[in-house]
């Protein structure tokens, strides 16, 4: 376990040493979304009866920030280690692929949660957030961060150059998160796009997470939980399989 714990600690320290870039910056960016969208839409949109638009928006933004940062942590750490070559330090060590996986997974979740917490706390300045079902909040925060931490590990191992990783970020992660109901309820969409949204796992992450705060959601939280858990299991399995086979790491 010492091996796992050391790698985990190293991964946390890595982003902790550059907090401005890894935590403060994403919190600020998210707050800018909050300021602008709530300013423009607060008086015009009421998604759920009795829930102000800003209060509706905050959980979505918190979830989006968690996902993007969990992804960013594992993917950028891996690609940096690969490109600079220092990945050899833990490839030479007697770490099992399970230890390797858990260390990267948990460190990414930690960063996701810290950024998410920062956004949520700052969000309280702008909106009253309910705490209808706190356990759902915790569950969706952890499970969704884990999913994107896995996607980050997969992308970090697969990518050979920074621009390939930026491609995943810009063409997969950002569209998935933006088109998931962060800023709107999918019930406001035309039928076709509503149906498409149901194939986006991020939709369930945000919908279930929001249910934890406001007690209302577009779909049953149990269904959302099932989708998110299924994603977490499938992606963990895939990541473990990649690590075990040494894909792109041990030639």
């Amino acid at each position, binding site marked *: 376990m*010492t*091996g796992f*714990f*050391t*790698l985990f*600690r*190293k991964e946390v*320290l*890595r982003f902790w*040493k*550059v907090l401005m870039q890894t935590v403060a910056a994403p919190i600020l960016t998210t707050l800018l979304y909050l300021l602008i969208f709530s300013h423009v839409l607060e008086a015009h949109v009421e998604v759920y009866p009795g829930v102000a638009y800003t209060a509706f928006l905050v959980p979505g933004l918190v979830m989006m920030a968690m996902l993007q940062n969990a992804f960013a942590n594992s993917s950028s750490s891996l690609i940096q*280690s690969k490109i*600079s*070559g*220092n990945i*050899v*330090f*833990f*490839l*030479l*060590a*007697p*770490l*099992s692929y399970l230890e390797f996986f858990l260390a990267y997974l948990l460190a990414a979740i930690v960063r996701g949660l810290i950024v998410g917490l920062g956004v949520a706390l700052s969000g309280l300045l702008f909106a009253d957030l309910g705490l209808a079902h706190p356990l759902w909040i915790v569950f969706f925060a952890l499970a969704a961060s884990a999913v994107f931490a896995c996607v980050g590990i997969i992308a970090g191992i697969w990518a050979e150059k920074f621009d390939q990783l930026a491609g995943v970020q810009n063409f997969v992660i950002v569209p998935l998160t933006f088109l998931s109901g962060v800023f709107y309820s999918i019930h406001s969409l035309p039928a076709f796009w509503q149906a498409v949204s149901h194939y986006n796992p991020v939709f369930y992450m945000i919908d279930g997470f929001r249910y934890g705060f406001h007690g209302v959601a577009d779909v049953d939280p149990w269904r959302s939980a099932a989708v998110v858990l299924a994603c977490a299991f499938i992606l963990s399995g895939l990541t473990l399989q990649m690590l075990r086979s*040494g894909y792109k790491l*041990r*030639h």
Partner: protein
Amino acid sequence: MPAAIRLQGLTKRFGRLEALRGVNLEIAEGEFFALLGPNGAGKTTLISILAGLVRATAGEASVMGHDVVRDYREARRRLGVVPQELVFDPFFTVRETLEFQSGYFGLKHNDDWIDALLHHLNLTDKADTNMRRLSGGMKRRVLVAQALVHKPPVIVLDEPTAGVDVELRQTLWQFIRELNRQGHTILLTTHYLEEAEELCERVAMLKAGRIVALDRTANLLRADAQRRVELRLKPARLPDALKPHLVGEQAGAFLLSLHDFGELEGLLAKVREAGVTIEGFCVREPDLEQVFLRIMQGEGQA
């Protein structure tokens, strides 16, 4: 007693390139062993397979009797590798780097040994400096320290002195020699053949993925048929009778090659007969570089 390192039929193909073509090698515990060969001969591939960084296409490799694939955790605990590339993690200091490396090997309280390593490698006053701020030579020493945090019985150094100044090279070899005296097995690759000749008891020469020479260093030097003498003559003109022996001319001196020193007397007699005076004379001992060049150019062609 299992061999420190054992390779059996080790083969590695990268696409169409055959980097290793069935290498068999056994290195006993406590040996100081050199692996020599030109660039692209397969030295780094061989070391990478041993370290688990590259997977062999066929054949087996083991460290202290532990297979590097099936029993990788035990094999890696017994192996310390100093990689050829100057790699480092710019987020951390020297001490952090060494603490993490200890942790990866499952060691929790390793401070005494880390301090000792820093001392032996002249890094004590750099312990809390960020890796980014170190010179190339210092980074190289940190890599050596990293390879040794878990006191591995088998130490592999992949060209550890490339681009390293003379003083550091001396410090490094002193330390590695001391480790060897304490019983550590050392496998070294280097381009500096005089280093291998001075340090290593046994040498393997690798060419195009095959071992083309494997013997004690002393035997390789002895087996080298070339005996050479350098003659400085007055007048500086080589008698015709000696021309078949001539292999080179340097700054007015003639370099002659003999099969054995028994020929020497006849040679000198011919000089005298030609009425030439000997002004300077010296015997050139064979060195590993000559042996290496002869083997690489000659036999074992792929």
